Structure formats: C-alpha cells, structure tokens
C-alpha cells in the first residue's frame, strides 16, 4: 500500500544522504522523494512515497526517526491529508489540430501552458499523482510527449495536526 512519509529534519549537510541511506541499506522502497527547506531555513521537510506492509512502514518510521538529524516523522496516510505533485510536460505540437487538442485537454485538467514554441508546448500541472498520471496519459493520446519531469509528492495533514519542531 502506498504511504506518504513526511519528515522534519535539520537542514544540514549529509542529512538527506542519511535518510536515503536508511532506505537502501535496509531494503525499503522509495517511489518518490521531495525535499526543500521550510519556512524556518534551519529545517528541511522531506516527503517520501513508499510502499510496504504495516510492519515495514513501522520499521521505516522508526529507523528514520532514529537518525540524529531527524526531528519528527509522520505517516500522512494514517489520517486526512492534502497531497500535491507538480509535473512539467513538454509535448510536440506540430499542427493546429494538435495545438488545440492539447490546449483543450489542459483546460479540462486545469493545467497551464507555461512555454510556447513553434513546435512544442510546455505545460505545468499540479495535483495528486493520480491526476498527473491521467493527464500524462491524455497528452500521450493527443500529442507526442517529448519529455516530462515530476517533483514527487509533498503533503501536509489536514486540520490542526502539524509537524513542528
């Protein structure tokens, strides 16, 4: 089952490699990983998408929490949460028909065209991973995908719950 593990850690050199190291050395899966400093620049927030049974997820949270640089860790999938991922996707738009179809589908998905060239469009879309998957599939049906890049998921718990130092 897919899990969203959110980690609050020191924004220190080597901290990220320690977390990634726990996953590789203990044989856990990383499906996506997203990390950046928080509003407090001395802290980083990292979101990992992983999968495994309850026992494995319990071990992941414990082993990551054990790292000296880690302040807090939470499995967001345990409760209500908001998750978002951003994708940039570049598609070939060689004809007017393709251009209009790409534009129409982008509007339906509430995606934004952020770069326009003679032969291609670059589109930005934000949403859950499922929505991004669906958009990519739709694009593939109406145009040739040249390249795409996804940020990986980031997420927050809904309501009062928060990951704070």
């Amino acid at each position: 089952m897919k899990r969203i593990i959110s980690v609050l850690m020191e924004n220190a050199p080597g901290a990220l490699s320690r977390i990634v190291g726990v996953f590789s050395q203990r044989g856990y899966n990383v499906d996506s990983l997203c990390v950046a400093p928080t509003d407090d620049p001395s802290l980083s927030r990292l979101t990992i998408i992983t999968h495994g049974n309850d026992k494995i997820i319990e071990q992941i949270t414990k082993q990551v929490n054990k790292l000296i640089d880690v302040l807090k860790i939470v499995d967001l999938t345990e409760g209500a949460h908001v998750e978002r991922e951003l994708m940039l996707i570049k598609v070939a738009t060689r004809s007017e028909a393709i251009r209009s179809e790409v534009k129409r589908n982008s509007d339906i998905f509430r995606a934004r065209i952020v770069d326009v060239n003679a032969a291609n469009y670059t589109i930005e879309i934000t949403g859950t991973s499922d929505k991004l998957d669906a958009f990519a599939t739709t694009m593939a049906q109406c145009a040739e995908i040249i390249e795409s890049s996804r940020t990986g998921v980031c997420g927050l718990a809904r309501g009062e719950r928060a990951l704070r130092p």
Partner: protein
Amino acid sequence: MKMMSGAAMVVEALKDVGVTHVFGYPGGAVLDIYDALFAQDDVKHVLVRHEQAAAHMADGYARSTGKTGTVLVTSGPGATNTITGIATAYMDSIPMVVLSGQVPSMHIGEDAFQETDMVGCSRPIVKHSFLVKRAVDIPEAIAKAYYIANTGRPGPVVVDLPKDLVNVADEHPYVFPADVTMRSYNPTQKGHPKQIKKAVDALMRAERPVLYVGGGAIACDASAKVIELAEALFSPVTCTLMGLGAFPGTHDQFVGMLGMHGTLEANKTMHNADCILALGARFDDRVTNNVDKFCPHADIIHVDIDPASISKTVNAHIPVVGSVDKVLDQLLGQVKKHDLSRQQQKLDDWWQQIGQWRAVKCLNYEQGDTVIKPQRVIQALYQHTRGEAFVSSDVGQHQMFAALYYPYAKPRQWINSGGLGTMGFGLPAAMGVQVAHPEATSVVVTGDGSIQMNIQELSTCLQYNLPVKIISLNNRALGMVRQWQDMIYKGRHSHSYMESMPDFVKLAEAYGHIGIRVDSLDQLDDAMAECFSHKDRLVFMDVRIDQNEHVYPMQIKYGAMDDMRLSKTERT
C-alpha cells in the same frame, strides 16, 4: 577567550570531554593534531600497528569501562582501515568516537592524495558523523560527538577533520560548550507508566516467567537492578552473548546463555515460558532461530531504549521504550507493592521443570587422557583466574566455548564481537581492556585463525607493556567453518584448514614476549599456572586442541528455539 590552533583545539576538547587515552596512527592529514598531542601529557596516545586494531582497542576500552573509546587516524587508508572496527562497535552499541583526518577543504572532491569520503564510507555503520567545516566549530563537534556516542543507544561517531582546519599556524577562539542540547536528539529514558503497569501485571500473572537479558543492561550499568528484580520475582534468567555478566553466571537462577549455542535449559525455558521480559536485547536471528516458531506461549515484554529494536523481528506484546536502568527502577517500584512471599511457591512447578532440563547436563563433554578438549582449556582458565579475569574473545568455536564454560560473575568482564562477529577483534580488545585496567588480568581467548588477523599488535603490546594473556585454542583449522562443513557439507573442508601455521611460540618470542606450547592434557594446568605467574609479561599460550570437536548444543536451522543438537549424535 583562549586562542589556539585547530589542532590544539582537538586536543583541548578531548581534555574537556575527559578523554585520557587515544588509540591511533599518524599520517599526513593529522600531523598537526599529532604535533598538538606531543605538547602535552593529559591525553595519552597508544600507537597501534594497524588502524583496525585502534578501533578494536578503543572498543575494548569502552566495553570494559563504559567510557567512550577514542580513535585518531589519518585520511584515506587510515580512515578506511577503521571501518571494520566501527562496524563492530555499531552492531554491539559501543560508544566510540573516531577522529579522522581529511584532505584540506579546498581539495575535497578532487580525488586528492589519501582522500576518501569517510563520512560517506562510514554512514551505514555510525550513529552519527560530522564533517567539520570551520575550525571554530571543532570544540562543539567533538562535544556533540561524545554526547551522541554515549547517550541513548550508544554507538560510534565519526568526526572528519580537514587538514586546513587543524593547521598549527592559524589560531582561533576556543569555546567549549557548557552543555550539549540537540533539538533533534532526545532519547527516551523512562518507560511510559501505562506500559510499566501492563508489564508488571503480566509479570505478576506469570507462572512461567523468564528474564532475557542483553547487552543493553550492561550499557546502562543496570546489573544490580536486574538481580534485584530477578530475585524479587524468583524468575529464571538467561543472557544473550552480549549480555553475559549482566546477571551473574554463578547465580542459582541463571539458566545459561540462550540462542544458537545456548544451553538446553535456557532455550527450553524461553520456549516454554508464559512471560518473557526482554531487557536490552534485540531478538536477533542467533537467538530466535525460526521467528515463526519463537516462544509460542509467551507474553513478550520488550524493554529497549531504541524503539526501532522493538517488534523488528519478533512482535512485542508490551513494548516499553526506555533505558533498562530507568525502566527497572519503575518495574521494581511497582513489583515491590505486590505480595512476593508466595512467588517462590508459585514458580515451584516451573523450577522443577527447569531442573529436569538442567539434569540433561548439556555442557558435558568427554575429555580423554591426552588430547585436550577446548572446553577443558576454558575451565582451566576459569580456575587459574578464579573467575575474575577480563576475558576478551575472538570469533569462532573458541568464542562459544569461552561464553559457555567461563561463568561471568560481573558485567563488562566478557568482551566479544557479538553482532558483527569480527575475527581479529580479540587481541586488540584485550589490549584496550588492559590500558583501561593496568592492574587487572586481561585475557584473550582466540584461535589459530582469528589471532592471525591482528597479530601485528604483539608489537604494540611490547611498546606499552600490556601483559595480555593470549589463550589460543589451536586446532589447525577454522573451527566453526569446519564444524558447519562437517554438519552441512558432508565433511568437505573447503579452505577451512591452514597448511602453513607459524610457530606461535617463536612468533611471540620474536615480538619480545613469552610463548608456551601445550600439547597434551597433563601439561595444561602447569602451563596455565606459569602463564599467570608472569604478571608483567605478555604470554602466548599455543594450546593444541582436538581438531574434531564441535560446539554443542546447537539450534537446528528453521526450528524453534529449543530444537537443538546436543552432540554429534543426539538431538532434542
């Protein structure tokens, strides 16, 4: 504010932490630090012959004292040579700080001479590590390193020091932090009161309890409380390989070591228990055998300071996160409120059952007239040291014999590489013990395979007058490998025997020590007596033992804890 060089800061910070001994080896990147060491006498340096041994010596020093062991090595090969020693300490939760030199900051990443990414190399086997970026940060990094190494679940910490930071020509203000606090690191000490209550309820309900005591009880010096609780409950006690000595091996309630080569009574007691109180033990595969068949009747209470150790392999019914010491205080406080006068009577059936398992006498062996059995050597060692020696061990059959046939009465008396199983650990560990306890008897039980993995340290022993007693059980083979080959590979001894064994007596003499060879049983006691009569000399006893002896009892793979072979022909 004192001004000093980065190198002087390293030494000053070590003094401020309270370090008295450093085990190390100089080289290009740490020459400045060595120059600072030269200028003072407070921090004593022990020059090893190979950096791996420096780590094991610091480890032996730490295990025998509870203090953090310190290693100082240069960059590149100096640092990487400590890796096995760091991994050994990590697996057994031993407090250690490794100060490694690094190439100058501006050359990091250029594949400079003797450059290795030590923080990267050691990452999976350290509790934490620091790559110091500014000279003024040196005192804080060192203070934090020692704090992290010896609090919570102890472990090794690496501090990587680029050469430009420790340059003796540059001076910086020295400020040693008054105390260390880290917002991201606050180990839980006390158990949760609700969990304590559940644990006490389970213990008081139990009719077949057992205490399963591991290295964690030694790490926090909780032995006295372990004994107090065991006696209050009148419960049998078993110790892991790492926990030997946490409960006296001579105590009536001790049923022996448990696990792969544990006693029959220990494994039977565990398997049939209705309540297991695990104290600082981690249910590792050398204990549990097949986890699916592990102790089917027991409520498992697992006390550990490391939450990640709880329910990692075996599910704990009552997890208690906290230090064994603090949790025992809590447990004792609650247990003593109960009426314990009938406890002995309540466990009468249980002890009768245990008595029957003990009566099997699983540690019996047949000692003939001439060929020496390894078990006999350990028993002789016990007699000649009155059970009071520090016994360090290497890894293999001799390790199991030393664990089973020398009842350790006190914690920190038995020093061995339990988790990693590092051959070559024993001699340097025993040296570290001797450095920490100059007046004590420090013995290493080793074999002809293990001793050759760090034999160069005989030279260090001469330099620092470390009168370690080496008891080498020489069977002309890699005994444990050979045993498995006998049992599983139809006796095909693939590369498990040594065809060109050195003359160990001459070798010891070449290093300036005393060598004694023992070939037959009638020589053993006199040789032991002679060995221990040389108080101030290192003695190497080359004891020729039966090549075909196996370690028994031994768990049968994929079985339950108590599925065991008792000899080459008998099983449970």
